[in-house]
């Protein structure tokens, strides 16, 4: 029972992160019908931006209390955090990383995807793979191929729960932040004018254009929103498991995409549900079956979903009109 509870907690925490990434996939698919393969790598960039920001802010903070910069750089290179651990810095780091990645998402869309939008979807898909590889390999050149260790942004504590399970403070923060972000996203999509335009574009791009919506701007906004969520997920993951490397986005990105398909691609609540389900299943497999197969679980689910309910759990079957 305690194993079950423990794995459930871990699964929900992991699932919340998958959900955040899946939201980006599903929104971009909604407006462009494009599998944005680069999305997982935007998440990676988010984690690295968090890393550099945390170390940079940490240095600034340490300088204020009178430590020499040289010693700090050396300590920074060793991966040790020089940061006064506090929740506020963690939030600032996350928000800045989100802003940088939102800009990155817009740049990717503008430079790579918009020029190929007039060609077939296959061309766009190949371009997306190209962007993904560029970020991965560019990341290896810029950030270095060896893994880095994320500084501790706040002191980790274990909180014991009933039934012998425990939850770390990192997990609690991940859950709270993910929840807040999803609520904010819901508000943006369903309560603002831009959100209404987004829904219109995903319903029918041509008609939305005819109704006077600036579709290019809406698509760029969608990329910004999705990339910001991915960056948040990157920083949150790094808070839970501090080891980050330039290839960390590949597998997580794929699993998040599976989560989006599971929930029904193009469907925002579906992405949240799918992410949670994938996360929980994965940790259950780790807990009860063989941990080596945890990476195969998501894809097995994908194949089952495509066999029995290709439109996803919450998706609706689209009528094809000629």
């Amino acid at each position, binding site marked *: 029972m305690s194993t079950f509870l423990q794995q459930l907690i871990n699964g929900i925490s992991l699932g919340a992160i998958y959900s955040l990434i899946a939201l980006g996939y599903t929104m971009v698919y909604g407006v462009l019908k494009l599998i944005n393969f680069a999305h997982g790598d935007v998440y990676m960039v988010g984690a690295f931006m968090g890393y550099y920001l945390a170390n940079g802010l940490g240095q600034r903070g340490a300088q204020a209390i009178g430590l020499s910069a040289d010693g700090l750089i050396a300590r920074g290179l060793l991966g040790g955090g020089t940061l006064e651990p506090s929740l506020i810095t963690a939030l600032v780091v996350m928000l800045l990383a989100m802003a940088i990645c939102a800009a990155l998402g817009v740049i990717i869309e503008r430079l790579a995807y918009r020029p190929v939008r*007039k060609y077939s979807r*296959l061309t766009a898909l190949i*371009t997306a793979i190209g962007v993904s590889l560029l970020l991965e390999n560019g990341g290896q050149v810029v950030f270095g191929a060896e893994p880095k260790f994320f500084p501790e942004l706040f002191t980790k504590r274990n909180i014991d729960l009933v039934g012998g399970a425990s939850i770390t403070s990192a997990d609690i923060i991940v859950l709270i932040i993910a929840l807040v972000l999803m609520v904010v996203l819901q508000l943006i999509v369903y309560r603002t004018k831009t959100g209404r335009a987004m829904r219109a574009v995903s319903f029918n791009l041509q008609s939305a254009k005819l109704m006077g919506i600036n579709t290019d701007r809406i698509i760029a906004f969608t990329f910004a929103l999705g990339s910001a969520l991915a960056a948040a997920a990157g920083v949150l993951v790094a808070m839970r498991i501090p080891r980050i490397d330039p290839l960390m986005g590949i597998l997580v990105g794929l699993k998040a995409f599976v989560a989006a398909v599971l929930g029904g691609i193009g469907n925002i609540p579906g992405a949240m549900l799918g992410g949670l389900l994938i996360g929980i299943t994965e940790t259950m497999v780790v807990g009860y079956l063989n941990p080596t197969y945890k990476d195969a679980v998501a*894809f097995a689910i994908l194949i089952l979903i495509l066999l029995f309910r*290709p439109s996803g759990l919450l998706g609706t079957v689209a009528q094809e009109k*000629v």
Partner: protein
Amino acid sequence: MPRYLRNLIIALIVIGVLYGLDFVFQGRLINPYYSRILMLCGISITLAVSLNLINGFTGQFSIGHAGFMAVGAYSSAYFSVTYGMNLANSLGGGKLGWVVALTLATIVGSIAAGIAGLAVGIPSLRLKGDYLAIVTLGFGQIIVVFLNNIEAIGGARGYSGIPIVKSFFWIFLIAILTIVIVYNIVNSAFGRALISIREDELAAEAMGVNTTRYKVMAFVISSAMAGAGGVLLAHFDGYLNPKSFEFIKSFEILIMIILGGLGSIVGSVLGAIVLTILPEGLRGFAEYRMVIYSLLLIILMITRPQGLLGSTAAFAGLRKRIKRMTEGPSGTASSATQSETSIGGENPR
């Protein structure tokens, strides 16, 4: 001269030439480094041309070709280690024994990869859209996870002790067979159905093409040929490692056919050769190699979405001229025009 007789003569000439060249390579008249690269080109051609059947001609998007290659490689390697070597020795251990053993290994590898293709293709090809891309990607990942965990075939350490058959003849025979099979499929009624699916799936369905059936058939054939490519690789170095079948390998094959042009067999062959030799030349910049690759790919997609040799008008003209030359003036009217329309070009809708 009857058609079959002509084809037979051509086949015999090709086999003779290959056999002769094989002697040149066996005799080490050529630097072994160059002959190694040349043979790797042959394997790449098999993989690229087979991927082109599903990606280029049928317009479906598979990005897990390395997974099928892995299935073919490992199953044939297992066959060779457990049965093939005994079989070859019981047949005298000479050339004949190895020809039989290797042929059987190739059949085993191709069938295993074909079955894997069937298992992946049926759930994903019933659906329109990008599902195949993501399922094949997932399949490629699952295969690597399993290969890493099955101890009977070496697990993460890799599978060693596979009989080594470094034969120019064998590799290029399979490569040429692949080209001939794909060429004949594309220029048949079956191929026309595939191309109609690529051009407009809905219209093809309305014209009575059983799209799912054709897509699955093309996919299974393509996977089986990828498996044959895997067989060649398994017996090339006598060692297999799950690492060589990761996503990046599928992607390399994909770049080959995109560079050459989707839907062009000649393009795939050239792409395979260029991209097998190029990394050898770029060894000095190993770190930046993939960065340059990916940038080039994006720029290529933006400026020339049909690929370098995508079936452009100039190229189709050349093909027609060759066809006229080989068939003579009394030959049947050219039927090569169907492959002129380009994929990845402007979407008609």
